[in-house]
């Protein structure tokens, strides 16, 4: 299955990917998604996405960097400023099996696909951190409307 899809379907596929909704894993790691831009480095994506209310082609996402270990709690922590929301301003979308290919208006090419190896581990750490922060902070991050 490799076909052009419209933005509504792209939104659904992207949501399914980042939440790990349609992925089954044999191991104990909670599934999710990773992102590749122009064939560069792969990075994990936080489990939330939001379509812009003013610009229907624009999707807000949150790429993840590696976690720090808090020396007091020995648990992973993230800096919300470092893992700030980013934008995918989509010109065209295509579905290819479990992958979502996006052509951005900037000319860049983006692929979102099921997370593997270190990106999957980063997601587990992000889940841990999201569980330890306050409900208000978590809801703020999931809303994807803060810079």
């Amino acid at each position, binding site marked *: 299955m490799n076909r052009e899809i419209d933005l509504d379907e792209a939104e659904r596929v992207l949501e399914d990917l980042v939440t790990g909704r349609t992925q089954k894993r044999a191991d104990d790691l909670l599934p999710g998604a990773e992102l590749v831009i122009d064939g560069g480095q792969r990075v994990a994506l936080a489990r939330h996405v939001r379509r812009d209310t003013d610009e229907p082609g624009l999707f807000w996402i949150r790429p993840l960097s590696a976690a720090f270990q808090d020396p007091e709690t020995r648990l992973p922590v993230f800096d919300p400023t470092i893992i700030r929301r980013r934008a995918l301003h989509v010109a065209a979308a295509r579905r290819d099996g479990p992958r979502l290919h996006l052509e951005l208006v900037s000319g860049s090419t983006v692929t979102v696909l099921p997370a593997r190896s270190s990106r999957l581990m980063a997601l587990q750490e992000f889940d841990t951190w999201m569980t330890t922060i306050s409900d208000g902070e978590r809801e703020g991050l999931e809303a994807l409307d*803060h810079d």
Partner: protein
Amino acid sequence: MGTNSKTAHASYSITPSAPAAEPGPVEAAPPAEVSATPPDDEIAVEVDSPKEPGAQPLTPIPDTPDVGKPFGEPILVGGADLHASSATLVSYAGAEGPRTVLHALVSEQAEDKLLDAIHVTKETAPVQVEQTVHGRLPVDEQHELADKIIAAAKSVNHHIKAGDLSVGNLPSTTEQKINDAKTAISAATDDVGDSPGPADSAMLAHYAAKLADVEAAAAAAKNVGHVNPYLHEGVAIVTVTMPVLASDAGDQRVAGLLRDATRIKPTLDSETGQASWNGMARWEKVAGKEYAINLGDGFQAVYRPYSVNSPKTTEFSLRGRLEIIAPAGEGHGPDVVKRLGQLNLANRPMTRAEGEYGYLAANVKAQNLAGKTEVQAAIATGDQLEEMTRQELFHERAHLAVGLDDAQLARFAKDIQLDAHTQALPTKVKVLREAVAKVTGHQTGDALAATAGYDPAPRRSGGWLTWNRFDVGNSMTKLTAAFKGKALVHATSATGLKAMLANGVLASTERRTLMGVSRGVGMSEDQDKLTGGASSVFLRVLGKPASHDGPKLVWDQPERLMHRADYYGANADTYGAVNPSKTGKYGSSTRDPFKIAHFTSPANEVMFGDGIDLLGAEGPSRILCDSKTQRDEIHAMFTAKGITHIAGKPIDDVLKA
């Protein structure tokens, strides 16, 4: 080990700064006085004769920077050993008195001479220090109580989002994780016995309550609220090792020990905005290596070399970072600058002539003039002039080199290099000013310097300095028209807004790390690009937001920030790496303020170096609060600090909800 010649220069007494006032052009210090005391032979701070106006210092060096001011005081240091010739002095509050730290980024070209100053040793002397520590209790760590309850909570939240957890239908993996957590609590309870201490008892009660929350959420198919680990406060004896030189008394180098990289770990009071540091606490397990350097007399330095830290595998922004740490106490501002000399780095304040060269260089970059033939020729001519001066000085002083040992020869050569730089500078400035004038449509350098926008004085913004763009200064009316109906906006959270205003700055990740707000940068070069850069903050060009649409910082007159020389923008999220072959109308980045004024994408970004001073001349036109309650809270915070106006506007008109 001073960096200047001792023979031809008067010593310079460093002038304390006035208390922090409304940011604006940095005033030059009063003319230098001749010190009554002879200069310290090792680390004298000197400038060339202060008779020439161009040789006067551009930024004063405070005796003790404002204690606890998290972003510190910016200073300019002569020469090009430090990135942008700048450093930041921070005085962290501490129980033993203020602790002044110089933070700087060493330029990669200056690293060789810095490393020449270090005698790498494995000899260390242990120092034992009593410290208050926070942490999890041993029983908790042994049985992984927090980890197992968090794993169960994560599983509940994930399966709710994935849609396969509902009332009466608990996935087996979630059930297993809840059971694992129960088993761990039970084992920990058995371990502590029938009469646990108060800390263990409180810890077990804390986790039992958290696990009950998880079970209740799983049964009701609702998200689990936050699960925080139980932290205990206690006192521990910490052993710190300092590198020492074993017996080589004739070695003028300083002892340095290569170790795993760390980052300074200050704490920031979210209410008062005061930064504190005990001189010891550091984030560990930072990806990279660093030298811990013993400078003597209680002074230390920490340096992360470019040469041993790959940008691909270590923290990109850590490379070249230098700290010079004074012992606790007042009056160490000038001392930490002097101590740069022990690392073979220039250790005198920047002169006005150097400042104008920096100003012109910043304008060349900002106005995209580096490719112009005239500018390239002027820079090459300047370099040749400096080289010729260096050769002349070498011939004049060659007889003084006879009989010098290796270390003295290295200092002799360094002095000549710095003197050549200083002597050639006025001509270099003139040549570059003429070229910049020509390519920007001015008859002569003097004609350019006479325009209203030409202002070669750095401006203080938070703990850093910025230069102005003269092209913007000379076309402000046009730029105001171009930005009509638009604003620069930073959308933030309610907690983020309060924290920023308590600190008074919108600061980059790197700056926030020094302040104690951020836990570090933690990114390779590729990640740094992807996340948008640790050394900048960003705003977006948007239509003017309504006053109830907070929390946001809004600049209704964007031209107030666009005079800065250190920004660039893109009409899209470029992820720092746009494929040049695909760059379209959205993708390419620009430093042109008129192009930035016409950005249309909601995801456009304008990046400013280091950050923005929110309470000074660059402060926002409007601060849109999350609620009326928050507006009142921030109003009270400002009033308590004596802040009545921001950028000339009463706070009643700035704070909106």
